[in-house]
């Protein structure tokens, strides 16, 4: 594909998602209803936290505003990743239907097409409800907002989205091996969000070790927020562990890119 007309990948991505955005905005009422519905469905997890706090004052040492901050950052990170490339989890269906063949002959990267395919703007409902909870949490938190805290909190949502995005891509790459196993990745993406909404120490030593060293979900929001909220880090890990988050996100991204390329190389079309 050495043709000079081939666009750079961000332009390709934008071109594709703009098409899907225009198609979803063609029916504005339906779009608004679905966005609100999506925000409500995904926001119920926070309603569960609110209901718990009708009985308790603190959850494993976290007050309501701190729990809201955990929830908001987890939901924001997953929400951004899901919006930007969540459709990639359907790559197994595309392999079965033979559409991946079509991707490979178009003048655009297969990854960009897989991520932008069927781009659903309604998924912005999740980052939106996370923003509402985030603002609520920040209003009620009594914290001295130093520059370091602001920077760590703000970057954690970007790096968190990168970590979740990498897991989406790893799950998609795995589907080149078995194209039926899309749901396995859900355990780490949606399950990962469910997990990171809560202070991870409650899940015990093994889980904390696993989400630190194996699937680094603890870096999505837990370690950065322990730094921001000035809370002790469990299992005697260093107090500055939250500051490693950008490195972890970069490593996860590199692994995901490698896995996707390996998966695509393994692709042998549908056969029959």
């Amino acid at each position, binding site marked *: 594909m050495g043709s000079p007309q081939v666009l750079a990948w961000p332009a390709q991505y934008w071109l594709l998602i703009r098409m899907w955005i225009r198609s979803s905005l063609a*029916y504005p009422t*339906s779009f608004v*209803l*679905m966005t609100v*519905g*999506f925000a*409500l*469905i995904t926001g*119920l*997890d926070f*309603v*569960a936290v609110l*209901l*718990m706090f*009708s*009985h*308790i004052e*603190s*959850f*494993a040492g976290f007050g309501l505003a701190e729990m809201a901050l955990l929830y908001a950052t987890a939901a924001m990170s997953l929400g951004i990743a899901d919006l930007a490339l969540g459709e990639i989890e359907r790559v197994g269906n595309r392999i079965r239907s033979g559409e991946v063949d079509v991707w490979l002959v178009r003048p655009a990267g297969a990854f960009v097409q897989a991520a932008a395919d069927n781009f659903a703007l309604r998924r912005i409902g999740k980052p939106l409800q996370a923003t509402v909870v985030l603002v609520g949490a920040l209003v009620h938190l009594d914290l001295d907002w130093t520059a370091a805290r602001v920077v760590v909190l703000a970057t954690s949502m970007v790096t968190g989205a990168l970590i979740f995005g990498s897991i989406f891509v790893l799950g998609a790459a795995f589907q080149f091996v*078995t194209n*039926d*196993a*899309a*749901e*396995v990745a*859900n*355990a*780490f993406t949606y*399950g990962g969000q*469910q*997990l990171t909404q*809560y202070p991870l120490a*409650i*899940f*015990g030593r093994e*889980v904390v070790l696993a989400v630190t060293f194996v699937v680094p979900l603890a870096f999505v929001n837990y370690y950065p927020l322990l730094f921001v909220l000035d809370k002790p880090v469990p299992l005697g890990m260093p107090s500055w562990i939250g500051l490693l988050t950008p490195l972890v996100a970069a490593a996860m991204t590199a692994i995901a890119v490698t896995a996707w390329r390996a998966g695509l190389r393994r692709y042998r079309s549908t056969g029959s």
Partner: protein
Amino acid sequence: MSVYWAIARRSFRRYSTYRIATASGVFTNTIFGFIFCGVFLTLWSAEPGLGGYQAADALTFVWIQQGLLMPIGLFGAATTSELGERVRSGAVAVDLYRPVSLIGWWLSADLGRAGFQLIARGGVPLLVGTLAFDLRFPSGAAQWIAVAAALLLALLVSFGIRYLVALTGFWIVDARGVEYAAIVLSLFFSGMILPLVVFPGALGEVARATPWAATLQVPADVWLGRTAHGAGLALAFQLAWMAALLTAGALLTRLATRKVVIQGG
């Protein structure tokens, strides 16, 4: 009757075809089960006896909830979404030509689906949960029979709701908004996000009276032996909602059928 049995059996087989997809779904249910267990253990250790549940009840609730999520169709189910899709595309006209009732056809298909998913996606997570935690089980034949009845009624109530939602497509062009609303109500009022016994005050009273309570909270309470007024009344509550919803479903089918005829197919 034999035709409905044949539909149910084939639906069972249809859903049992995708083994790897089933296994990966079981894996995901199990992971979610462990997450909820961690959360509920923390909650119940802060507030022992919350909502009349002991910690062991709450942990058992988690695995019942994860096990019933797919069979009962708390997030919606493939059968009734397929019906909704057929209403939208007009393919339902073919269903109406068949010499069997529409509601009977889809109910049989749903029972077949639920039967398979109850074994695969209900049984396996419960087994894992039992190995990892000290869970409560029904004691004695009478309670097991009550549990079986509660599960069947839960499915029939859930089907009644999902069938009505699918039929709204006859009147509303894009029924996806209704489907979303149905999922929100189901997740909130069934006990999926939190057992309804924990819901405070009037909200709890309302939640426990809704048909969605009959789809998850009631069977879980029958299993745990923690029904507020005995298992008999709990089953009667489910039975009443089932009768109301299936009657409404049958009536709405007749209305919808007339509409299809008026439009000429």
